[in-house]
């Protein structure tokens, strides 16, 4: 998904949240045939099937590209990935603190 290549994590956590929302509602939904679903930072991403087994790979790749660090398997957990807010809380902070 070349659309993700130029995205950076952003100066603030809010920018990262917006980048995630734009990515999921844009390229990710388009690629996986999801309709005009609107999401926010607190929308459950997986329990309702908004993101499926193909989408999760793209989402992980996006997080890795924007933070510049691999996502360890132990972090593939609902505590860190359940919503955009949790993703931002975990990975933006981690990227900032190195």
């Amino acid at each position, binding site marked *: 998904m070349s659309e993700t290549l130029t995205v950076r994590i952003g100066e603030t956590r809010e920018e990262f949240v917006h980048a995630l929302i734009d990515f999921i509602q844009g390229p990710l939904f388009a690629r996986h045939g999801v309709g005009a679903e609107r999401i926010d930072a607190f929308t459950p991403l*997986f*329990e309702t099937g908004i993101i*499926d*087994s*193909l*989408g*999760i*790979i793209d989402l*992980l790749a996006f997080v890795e590209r924007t933070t510049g660090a691999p996502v360890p*398997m132990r972090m*593939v*957990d*609902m505590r860190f*990935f359940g919503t955009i807010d949790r993703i931002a809380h975990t990975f933006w902070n981690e990227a900032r603190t190195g």
Partner: protein
Amino acid sequence: MIVRWQESRPTRAGEDLRALDDVDRRIRSLAMSFGAREVQYPVLISREALERAEYREAFPHLLMTVCHPASSDPQPPTGYAALGTDHGAWCLSPAVCYHTYAQVAGQELDAPSVVTARGRCFRAEGETTPGVRQIEFEMREVVCLGPAGTIEMFANAAQSAVEMVAAEIGLQGVWQAAEDPFFLPAASGKALLQRLLKLKVEYQWPGPGGLALASVNRHGTFFGRRFNITTPDGQPVHSACVAVGLDRWAHHAVVGRE
């Protein structure tokens, strides 16, 4: 334990055999506490049933087929070609629970159903270690079919019950989120989703390698849809199964006593 490397599974006798049966008796008792109906399934399973379950797509590297040497085919296919849909009607059961879904295929279940069975299973493991990873092994499974709420209660209760039985025989494992060993890289998303949603949790031996002693698997409506099994309101049933590897339990129980 008597071990011959030519064997697909260690021959058991004496204490080893008693240890295996003792583990099964305890897990069977656990199943009965959930109101399970006990059944005995055959060793072979129809290729059609496994294909309906998408087993061949997900785990072609583990599937073992049954060949007939006197086949009219002068050059029967080998390797992955032998997995072709037009070759052979039977496979060796890779797990117990596929029989359960096949048996109730196309049915409407008017109440939740719990089934348990002890069965021989076969997987084409690349590397084997007796008592740990074998081509042939025995599993006791408890399968529950019904509405989502029932399945969730069953899965949670079964997890606690497995832990209790393990403690009774001195096994102390740890529950870990896990995923199935899907063959194709394209299925890696399925594996990630399994891990993320904790659809599969394993009770792992706390040594290196995270060897699974048991697993609790939540399938959602996957098998309900694949086998057209419905609830009275016409919705696909949810399902979950608990799988206990009897050889591993017996092996580690014996090792633990030594």
